[in-house]
Structure formats: C-alpha cells, structure tokens
C-alpha cells in the first residue's frame, strides 16, 4: 500500500537541520496503522495494568506529537468518552446482575425486579460483588482503550487528509464522509441555537412537541447547508468525469458490491465454525480480488492530483512498524503465559505484569520520538482586521 505513495518530496528539504529533525507532518496512514495495530493488541488483553500502560503511552504520544489544528484538540473528549464507557459497563453489570457467589466480596444490593418465567434467564437487580464491579471495569477499560486508540489516530492525523489516501474509486465515499464531517459539528451548533431560541417563545422544552420544535428547524437548516456545500463542491470541479464511460462506472459498482459481499461472507465463514467450508477462505479471496479489480477500474476514472502529498519515509515505517510489532507480540503468545493477559478476578488476585507484552506496549510508545516533530504552531497573531479597527 505505501509504495505508490512514496513520491519525492516537493520541497527537497534536508532531513536534519542542526541536529534537530525538520518538523513535518507524518503521513496520516502511518498514524492510523500505528493506532489500529495498538487497538488490535489491546483487544487481546484484559489486564488492567497493561491497559493503563496503553493509555499512558497514548497520552504521551498524543501530547508529544499532536499539532495545534482544531481536530488535534479532541483527545480529552475521547478520554471522557472512555470514562463513560467504563461507567456504563459497570452500571450494566450491576443492574443486569450476573449473580453473586458465596466466595465473592459483597458490596451492595440493588432491589431485585421480578422477571416473568419465560424471561427467567435474565435477572435484574440483586446483590453486587466487588469482583463483578472490577471485572466490568476492566472489561470496560479494554473497550475504552480501543476507543482511545482511535481517538489518538484522529488527533494525530487529520481525518480529512487521511480520507484522501483512499483509492480513487472510493473517492465518492470519502467525499460523503467529508460532507458529514463538515455538517455534523454545525448540526450540534444549530441544535444548541434552536434549543436556546425555544425559550424566547416560552415553548415547552420537554416532550414530543419540543422535539418537533427543535428537529424541524435544525433539519431544515442542515439540509440547506448540505445542499449549499454540495453545490459549492460541484462548482469547484468535484467529480469531474475522467476518461470513464457510464458502462465502466457500472462495472466498477458491480465489482465493488459483489466484492464486498464476498468479503462479508468470507469473514462469516471464517468466524463461525458451523458455516460451510466453502464460505471461508475461498469467498474471502474471491471478494478481495473483486474489490481490488473494482478499485483499479474505478481509480482510472477520477482524475485529480494531491496538493502537498505526504511522503512515506523511514519515520512512517518506524511508527507503523512499532505499532504492528506490539500487536504481533501480544498475539504471538511467545515468551509469556497467555493467562497473564486475561487475569481472572474470581477469586480476587493482583494482576501480574507480564514483561514481554509490557515491553511491546512501551515499544509502541516509541512512536512519540520516532516520528518527526509536528509543524510549529503559527504564532497567535492578532488578526489584521482587529488591528485595523483598533486604530
């Protein structure tokens, strides 16, 4: 994948200036590979020590290598979201009781809600043990960690720039995401605006009527904005036909669709042991081939160039590599006891810190200094307009 992206840098800049590396933005794909690999590694373990280590590593890399751009300020929201995930997990475990055993450490009891006989498999309420809370918390922490990995990727790499790396045939998809990425924050703003304005009419702020009073103006606003954005994109040349004909466009669509179906069926076949054999690898391979063919064909029809393409150099290999390596180590099961990745809380015991996985996670943190420093933030200049007006 990266090989076609390796282009000579436009500005033939020396990689080294006076001992310090030249600040530049890392290729967004490198960050995404790094983060997704780390998320994959996280999916393997339930060990709270390793998970906290991952969060610390993410925090370090993000603080060291994020830019000052607007999308790069969002990591703390992912951390909040992570806390919410853990909290939800714990609350669910407490409410949908999974039972307490005599050996458990009783914490508190919730009132039990009687369930009908036909629903006897699920209990609501009842005693809650420390073990249950802790295991729910570690389980939630694992999901939260994966979420933070995605958050780190979003913070370190511009999402819209990352989308540009998509092959040409998926360009429409990328643009659809771009439009939603642009309109979504505006949607939040207009919800706030309309909600505030409702008080001016002394309209009810709760209930179905209020919902309608907010949804109708907000949706009208969003629809108009989307249309205006689409019109603006059209008049700026988006989607100019290349050499493709209507026929080749159809073939591309058919190839992509059947390829995706093949991939889905293949994944199902591989994951479900009861599925027929034919569904597994063969379907997966066929799907992949169809998709690649579709992408190739579709890539020919969109003609566009990239402003300041990101080069793929040693730094990119290093960052992506150390992420992938940590995933490989955690899935490799070599040099450590697999049980240590998922310590049981029944009975309660201290988690261990298996050295090899811990080292692998720390290695992923090396991305914090293997990557080049980000572009220095533009000095906070007083906007010219303000200086003019101040005189």
């Amino acid at each position, binding site marked *: 994948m990266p090989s076609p992206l390796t282009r000579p840098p436009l500005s033939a800049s020396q990689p080294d200036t006076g001992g310090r590396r030249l600040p530049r933005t890392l290729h967004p794909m490198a960050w995404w590979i790094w983060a997704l690999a780390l998320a994959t590694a996280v999916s393997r373990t339930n060990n709270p020590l390793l998970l906290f280590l991952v969060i610390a590593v993410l925090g370090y890399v993000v603080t060291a290598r994020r830019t000052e751009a607007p999308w790069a300020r969002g990591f703390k929201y992912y951390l909040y979201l992570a806390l919410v995930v853990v909290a939800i997990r714990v609350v669910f475990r407490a409410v949908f009781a999974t039972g307490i055993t005599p050996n458990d*450490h009783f914490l508190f009891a919730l009132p039990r809600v009687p369930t009908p006989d036909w629903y006897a498999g699920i209990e609501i309420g009842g005693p809650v043990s420390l073990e249950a809370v802790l295991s729910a918390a570690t389980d939630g922490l694992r999901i939260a960690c994966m979420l933070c990995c995605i958050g780190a990727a979003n913070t370190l790499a511009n999402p819209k720039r990352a989308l540009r790396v998509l092959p040409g045939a998926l360009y429409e998809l990328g643009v659809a995401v771009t439009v939603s990425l642009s309109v979504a924050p505006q949607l939040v703003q207009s919800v706030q605006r309309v909600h505030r304005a409702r008080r001016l009419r002394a309209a009810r702020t709760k209930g179905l009527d209020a919902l309608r009073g907010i949804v109708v103006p907000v949706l009208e606003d969003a629809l108009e904005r989307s249309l205006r954005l689409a019109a603006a994109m059209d008049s700026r040349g988006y989607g100019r036909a290349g050499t493709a004909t209507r026929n080749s466009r159809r073939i591309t669509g058919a190839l992509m669709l059947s390829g995706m179906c093949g991939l889905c069926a293949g994944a199902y076949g591989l994951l479900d042991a009861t599925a027929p054999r034919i569904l597994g690898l063969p379907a997966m391979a066929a799907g992949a081939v169809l998709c690649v063919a579709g992408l190739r064909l579709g890539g020919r029809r969109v003609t566009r160039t990239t402003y300041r393409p990101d080069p793929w150099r040693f730094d990119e290999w290093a960052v992506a590599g150390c992420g992938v390596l940590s995933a490989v180590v955690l899935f490799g099961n070599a040099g450590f006891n697999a049980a240590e990745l998922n310590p049981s809380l029944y009975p309660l015991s201290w988690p261990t810190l298996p050295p090899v996985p811990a080292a692998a996670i*720390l290695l992923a943190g090396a991305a914090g200094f293997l990557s080049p420093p980000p572009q220095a933030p533009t000095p906070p200049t007083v906007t010219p307009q303000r200086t003019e007006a101040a005189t």
Partner: protein
Amino acid sequence: MSGSVTRAAHALAPLGMAIALLGGSATTASAAPQPMGQCTTSSGAVLAVDFSKWGGPIYRSCGTTPTTGYELLNQGGWRTTGTGHDGPAFICRIGYSGHRGGKQFPPPEQDDCVLTPPASAYWSYWHADAGENTWEYSQLGAMLYKPKPGSVDLWIFGGTDIEGTRGRPAVTPDQLRARNTQPTGGGRPAGSKPTRQVQPPPPGVDTGPAPTRTRTVPAPTRKAPPSPSATTPAPASVSPSPPASPAPPPSPSIPATSPAAVAAPSSAKVVDAAPAADAEHDSGSFVPVVAAGGLVVVIGAAAAVAAKRRRAE
C-alpha cells in the same frame, strides 16, 4: 492525563489490599458437599463433569439439596471461572482440586474467558431428574437452576445448538446417578484422600432398590447400545417430557466399545470425586501493580515534559 491514571491506580491499590485482607467471606449456603455415598436415588444431587476432552475422566460428586447448579459446581474442591463479559454465572472454566492440582479447563491458551465462548466449544449443561434416563439441555444458567433431589447434573465440553439436539452427552444419566436408596459410606468425607477411583456401578452389584417411580433399573447384562439418547431422536427435548417408555432399558455398560461417541467418548472412566479442600489460591503479589504504576508515572512525566516544551516553543 497520565497523572489521573496514576492517581486512579494509587486509589485502587489500597482498596484491593483491604479486600484481599478480608479473605473469603462467610459462606451461608445451605448446600454442602457430600461423599458420593450420601447421594441416593431420591436425595442429594449428583454432579458430573466430563474432562475427557483433556484426557481426564468423568468426575462425579454429590451435594445436598436445595442447591443451585452453581453451588453444586463450586463446593468440595470444585471451582469455576466466569467470563469477563458475563461474570461468574457463565461457566467458562471448571476445575477440581483433586484433578491435576485444581487446574481449570479449558486452559487460557484455549479460551481466554474474556468474551462469551463460541457455541462450538463451551461447557454445556445437562440435567436428568430422578428416574429419568434422558439428558435435558439446561434452559437456565447454573446460578438459576435448582437441581431436584435425586437428579444428575452433567457438564460436558464441546459444541451444541440451542435446542441441544446436537452434541448430546454419550454417557447416560443412569451411568452416573446414585443407585442406593439409603446413604452409604458414612457421613464423613474422606478428607485425606480427596479422590479415589471407583468403577462406575459395577454390573450386578446391588446398589439398592431401583427408583420407585416408573421403572426398575434393569440389570445391565446385555451389551445394549450404550447411549440411546444419542441415537434416539429427541424431538422437543426442551419440555420436561414424561419418562419415556421404559421398554428399551438403557443399560450402562462399562467397557463401552461403541463408536457412537459424540461429545464424550463413553470410554471415559467415571470417577467419584470426594469432597476436598479448595485448591490453594494465591492472591499474588502487588509488586507488578506498583511497577506498572511506576511506569505510568514515568510516561506521564515524559508527556508533561513534552507538553511543557511545546508550550515554551
């Protein structure tokens, strides 16, 4: 950020310590383990666990009623592990202190017990009420199911479908259940000898009168098909069907040479497991926690330095 993480870690540490000091809380359960001889055709519940997947025998032990399937499986040296996702109620691993030092199966290499195990490899739960000779796939979890006196609970590892029509046990309830009507062997568990190998009900040995209800236990003299339940279609075995016609008497044959084994080869030995002390549990050392906390602090400090430097720039 990492500051808050370490703070959280520090806050957790003493909490965990305090909990660890509390030790095992008082057990108020009425259920208690019994030597196998205490189970009769009409009292006590028999627990059987099939370790044949890992080359072990089928263990059976006895517990008093009222009890739950979970309690039966967590007393007298038995211990289970739940999953991280579903909690202890989902039986993911089973171990017996008298078998390979209490090692729980499946081992972590085979299943990490984080998510719900796949339907193709998990501990399935089967019941046979007193006098029944067909297995019934449990519709309830171990914590909710209450074994009746004289019944047999069986855990086998493998795959089933939701109706329990596939992956049925090869061993029959009658091969496992108590035959005696009166408790035998004294009330004291053989504490010093946690296990003793007992041949399954030897043929011809009188284990007491048969269950009084509908059928007589036939003397296993013929080499009948060893597991009729595996061969007889069991439509709607979900419903607690009245005892099937006793005409073809199921007969536990000891040297089961039949090839019909599906989940558990009936060649697996049935071994009585006497109540035993719990396997030693080591609550571990808190050193790794401290070490991890230290690492997090160091990384956090590095992040702080990086943040400070970029602010200075």
